[in-house]
């Protein structure tokens, strides 16, 4: 009796190495209290250490009796499994070797602690100043002749250098492009228009004077609103020329010289942006892209370059926003000017930027399997004489509805419906008739857009097609492109810009002589 008990005890003790290896009722904090080793209880090391490194924790017994999928009853029947292998189902082979950390903690936990303090993966961590940028060469040609333009639509090389430095709580950020662009007519450097050999993209300081307040001061890129390549309440400057000739998309946004003040609270957030001098769009002037000239009533280009008078005043933009249960809500206000020179001064024969102020709102939220957005805006063209003066644009209401979804892996589709609705249309028509204008636009301009994006080759190749189509203007604009990340640093890209239109005066139709294809190579650092 006594003897058998003892024998039983010994058997249990010897066979219990395994059972004991599984810790008692899983201690909180997942560390055994008994040993100093942080990760593993003592029970595991003698049992596993010798056999594991070669992945032999469980000599592959390959019990042929167990067919795949048919598992043995889960936990260690009787707790007596001598090699712990019988409970492995067939087909599983040997179990994996334990990773280094688990071995290390057994052998020398101090090493790990030491590593924890010093080990850092990032090579260039916290240098004196962060430098990044790229070198980009790109060229493009027209796919048809244009009597008023060069055959080459694009031919340039640019070096972008970005510098970022934190001094205490202040972040300093400078991004500048240095470029050689033999195609540009005007080589004189102008930081406002981006002409010439230098295009200063950013030069600003950012800091938080109060816990609920941010300030960003200086040259900066500003974006808000919900549209995809359609901007209603984002009245920050755009570079349409860059967009149409095949520069990288980042150049669609032209820099603003502004003071941005942001306030944050649980009730909502407020951005207030003051631009002391008007930042116009870098719009189509005829220098590089031909356009419809209403004075000539024909397409024009370098024969009739648009000269404009910039207002000598500032701009104010405001956004109030808050997210409620996944709904991103925003209200917008703007006080300034039409961003492109839609006005005309007959006495100077120059295009003008008439006064404009706007109010708008947007909401963006998940809908079904994608993201939907609605944005509205009212452009109040309040320059004196608007409505009767044929050279000042009328007010407009604008509306956008969008939806984007990933259809299958790495393939997404976005669609948008966009409306520009001219106010006081009858006034506009009679004013245009007064001056004998040949072209009277529609009261409502409808536009549909479609974005297709497909990524292949481990997401290193991106195929994209963005289409604008206006059923009211009967014109369209196609932006196909393919880019290939050859390595982390090198990128190849090719694409095109194609315009079709029934009329040469419609928004996209006027660009029919600007159809172009381009290619680019870029090295990022």
């Amino acid at each position: 009796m006594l003897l058998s008990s003892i024998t039983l005890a010994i058997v249990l003790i010897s066979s219990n190495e395994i059972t004991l290896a599984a810790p008692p009722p899983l201690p909180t904090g997942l560390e055994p209290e008994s040993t100093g080793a942080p990760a593993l209880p003592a029970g595991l090391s003698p049992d596993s250490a010798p056999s594991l490194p070669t992945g032999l924790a469980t000599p592959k017994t390959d019990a042929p009796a167990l067919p795949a999928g048919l598992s043995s009853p889960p936990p260690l029947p009787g707790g007596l499994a001598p090699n712990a292998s019988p409970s492995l189902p067939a087909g599983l082979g040997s179990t994996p070797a334990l990773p280094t950390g688990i071995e290390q903690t057994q052998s020398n936990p101090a090493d790990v602690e030491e590593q924890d303090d010093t080990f850092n993966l990032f090579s260039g961590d916290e240098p004196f100043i962060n430098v990044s940028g790229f070198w980009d060469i790109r060229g493009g040609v027209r796919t048809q002749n244009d009597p008023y333009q060069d055959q080459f639509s694009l031919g340039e090389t640019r070096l972008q250098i970005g510098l970022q430095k934190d001094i205490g709580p202040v972040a300093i950020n400078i991004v500048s492009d240095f470029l050689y662009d033999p195609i540009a007519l005007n080589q004189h450097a102008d930081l406002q228009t981006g002409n010439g050999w230098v295009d200063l993209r950013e030069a600003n300081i950012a800091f938080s004077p109060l816990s609920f307040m941010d300030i960003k001061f200086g040259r900066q890129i500003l974006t808000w609103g919900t549209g995809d390549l359609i901007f209603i309440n984002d009245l920050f400057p755009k570079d349409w020329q860059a967009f149409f000739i095949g520069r990288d998309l980042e150049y669609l946004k032209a820099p603003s010289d502004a003071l941005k003040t942001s306030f944050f609270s649980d009730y909502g957030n407020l951005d207030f942006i003051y631009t002391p001098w008007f930042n116009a769009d870098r719009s189509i002037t005829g220098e590089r892209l031909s356009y419809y000239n209403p004075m000539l009533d024909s397409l024009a280009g370098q024969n009739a370059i648009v000269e404009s008078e910039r207002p000598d005043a500032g701009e104010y933009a405001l956004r109030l926003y808050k997210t409620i249960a996944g709904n991103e809500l925003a209200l917008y206000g703007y006080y300034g000017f039409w961003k492109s020179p839609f006005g005309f001064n007959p006495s100077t024969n120059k295009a003008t930027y008439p006064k404009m102020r706007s109010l708008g709102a947007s909401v963006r939220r998940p809908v079904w399997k994608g993201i939907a957005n609605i944005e509205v805006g009212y452009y109040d063209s309040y320059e004196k004489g608007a409505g009767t003066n044929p050279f000042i644009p009328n007010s407009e209401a604008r509306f956008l509805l969008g939806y984007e979804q990933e259809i299958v892996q790495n393939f997404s589709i976005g669609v948008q419906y966009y409306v520009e609705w001219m106010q006081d249309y009858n006034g506009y028509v009679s004013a245009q008739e007064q001056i004998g204008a040949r072209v009277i636009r529609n009261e409502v301009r409808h536009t549909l857009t479609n974005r297709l994006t497909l990524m292949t080759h481990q997401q290193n190749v991106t195929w994209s097609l963005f289409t604008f189509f206006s059923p009211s203007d009967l014109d369209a604009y196609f932006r196909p492109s393919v880019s290939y990340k050859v390595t982390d640093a090198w990128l190849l890209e090719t694409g095109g810009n194609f315009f079709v239109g029934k009329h040469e005066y419609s928004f996209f139709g006027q660009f029919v002589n600007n159809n172009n294809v381009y290619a680019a190579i870029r090295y990022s650092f």
Partner: protein
Amino acid sequence: MSIKQLTLGLSAILASSVALAAAPSVDEIVNRTNYTSYYQGQDGKAKVKMTITDSQNRTRNREFVVLRRDIPTTDAIENNAYEGDQKMYVYFNRPADVNKMVFMVLKKIKTDDDRWLYLPALDLVKRIAASDKRTSFVGSDFLYEDISGRNLQADTHTLIGTDANYYIVENKPVAADEVEFSRYVMYIHKTTFLPISTEYYNKQGEKYKTYTALAVETINGHPTITKSEAKNLKTGGSTLMEYSSVEYDVGIPDDIFSERNLRKPPRKLLR
């Protein structure tokens, strides 16, 4: 002597019976594994380096900092109390063309995640549709779901074996037509509940993908996989993922995960 041995024997019997009784249920195992993989601490931060190697041994690197904060305020496994929505902020350093880009996720257990991408060159906060979670994360062999965690309810779990080191758990998808695998087998380390190895089988029953933990460190009391590798057996590609500067319970404020910090990254936390 004999009394002593008897006592010893009895205590051994007791111990073994306790151990047997405490052998966790498969439900507890997968929950503990889910916890150790994705939920340790109230928040966490790490620097991550991915080395993506294709079948021709060409490599690409990704370097980013991850900030995470859990909505549930408890780490208790009981009743899945630890499990809940999470916020993640991923700031990219490399490669250069995505430098300063930010990816932000509000991971939701019951519905689709909310996701945003911040593109600094355009100052654009883009809300992105919740994509197929079994899509590659930044072109690596890790999927979105590997990074953010797969819902436990999406699979059925069976303990198909144990050995000295591992609980071996087989997982089969509840909605089989929504995923590319037919099952995956996890080798879960018994004491830490870390998934040391995971093997994925396709619909034909072939093993096509493996994940292996290569290094483990205990950080702030939490055993943490600091080096792991995903291998795609079909393409021959693999991705090594290394963690450094891992910290738990950093005290990451909830408002870090906001548009404000997309546009103005919290540099102190990202160092």
